[in-house]
């Protein structure tokens, strides 16, 4: 599904964020990428959504070599990869429904399709009854579930979650992780980037540990050992 082949990313003037990363993620896997701040976790996410390009190496997603992706191909890639962030990235002037629908609107989907799909996705994240609330009227966990619903709207094969529980309390964090596991059970590959030790240890899934821009450990059923 995702292949990072000898990926190196250098930021000017001479900061090596990633060094010779080789990582293969199979379809339907649930992988946690862990590490301390500055270890290169978010750089991998930014590479996967083509926000930045690698200095060296090859990056292939679903058979598509995106190493030298053209700018007009990026929207197509992003519709195939769902992303959620720590800060939710919701539009405050839009309701829950509108925030989720926004992803379909910008992709040119017909209104009738939006009206059908959005309630279905809101049902998956258990927010159907709060469809017409604004983000300010939601808890942190609910906001993150809106972000997940939006990320799922294009039915992506890969869901990237960059510190999705970073702003949440333990209870809400568990809710979000349970949701990610549920999405993974439906067949979506989930890449969870986090530094939350408890969450990673409770998952009993594959753990890739980054340290100083290098992969220090890659365990099939791993633990957060740093």
């Amino acid at each position, binding site marked *: 599904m995702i292949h990072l082949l000898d990926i190196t990313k250098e930021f000017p003037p001479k900061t090596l964020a990633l060094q010779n990363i080789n990582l293969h993620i199979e379809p339907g896997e649930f992988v946690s990428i862990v590490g301390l701040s500055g270890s290169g976790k978010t750089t991998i996410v930014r590479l996967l959504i083509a926000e930045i390009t690698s200095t060296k190496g090859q990056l292939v997603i679903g058979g598509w070599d995106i190493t030298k992706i053209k*700018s007009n191909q990026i929207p*197509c890639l992003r519709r195939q990869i769902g992303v959620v962030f720590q800060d939710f*990235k919701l539009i405050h002037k839009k309701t829950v429904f509108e925030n989720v629908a*926004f992803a379909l609107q*910008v*992709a040119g989907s017909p209104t009738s399709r939006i009206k059908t799909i959005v309630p279905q996705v809101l049902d998956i994240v258990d927010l159907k009854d709060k469809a017409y609330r604004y983000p300010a009227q939601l808890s942190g966990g609910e906001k993150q579930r809106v972000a997940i619903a939006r990320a799922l709207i294009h039915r992506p094969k890969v869901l990237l979650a960059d510190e999705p529980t970073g702003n949440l309390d333990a209870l809400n964090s568990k809710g979000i992780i349970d949701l990610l596991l549920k999405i993974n059970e439906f067949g979506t590959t989930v890449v969870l980037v986090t530094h939350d030790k408890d969450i990673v240890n409770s998952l009993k899934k594959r753990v890739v540990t980054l340290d100083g821009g290098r992969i220090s450990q890659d365990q099939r059923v791993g633990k957060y050992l740093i």
Partner: protein
Amino acid sequence: MFLYSIGRSFMFALQSFGRNIWLSIATIFIIFLAFVSINFLVLINGISQSAIAAVQDKVDISVYIKTDVSESKIMEMKNHLSSMAEIKNIVYKSPELNLKEFQERHASDEKIQETLKELNNNPLGATLIVKAKELTDYPNVLKSLDNPAYSDLIEEKNFEDHSAAIDRINTIADNVKRGCLAVSIMFAIIAILIVFNTVRIAIFTHQNEIAIMKLVGAGNWFVRSPFIIESVLTGVIGCAIALALVYPLVSFVQPQLSSFFGDMNFNLISYFNANLIKIIGFELLGIIVVNIISSSLAIGKYLNV
């Protein structure tokens, strides 16, 4: 899908227009001022064109025929002149008509009236009033009148050359046009800068939304187009308001112009009506092109897609 995208681009543009309403109004006002000066330029052009046409219309050659020339000879000469490509029209005035007009013109002059009574014959000959199509055609017409076959029939030729007056009108009009053009260019530059700045502020205002749009897979064109549409919208509104104000302004000015130009039968409203489609078309096209360029520059500089 394409139609949905266009529709949503318009919707986002209108939302942005509404959210930055004061900025939009300021932009519209500057564009309006630019078009007021441009329309003033158009008015000056209309006035000068009409004035020149009126003066040109007064230019003719009066050919005074000797009294002893028969009417058939005069008609032969008239037919010959009419066959020339340069001739617009020729009016024949008989000796009787000339005498009548002369008497009327000098009705209050007793001496002239008495002298005419004492003369048994009509002292005046016939006249041909020759109008050429263009001012530049008159030398050719005069040359053909010098033809020996006709020159013996002619008592006198009177060519009133109004080229000095036309030059003067042209000079005044050119100076006013230059002034208006300078003001128009100045307003156009200000409008471009304002549109550029409006788009820049709109981009900053929507930074969060733009980032989310890109994140969820909006195409580059979809991210850019609302800003271009918004700038075109402000331009078209500014232009439309200026055009809408031109008519009442022209109607207000028309009586003053009519009295100033006297018998020139000058009508600015007719000029505007005759050129309405051209004026609206050029002005709208102009502001659309200018705003697309200006907003594209701002997008290129401040919007990373």
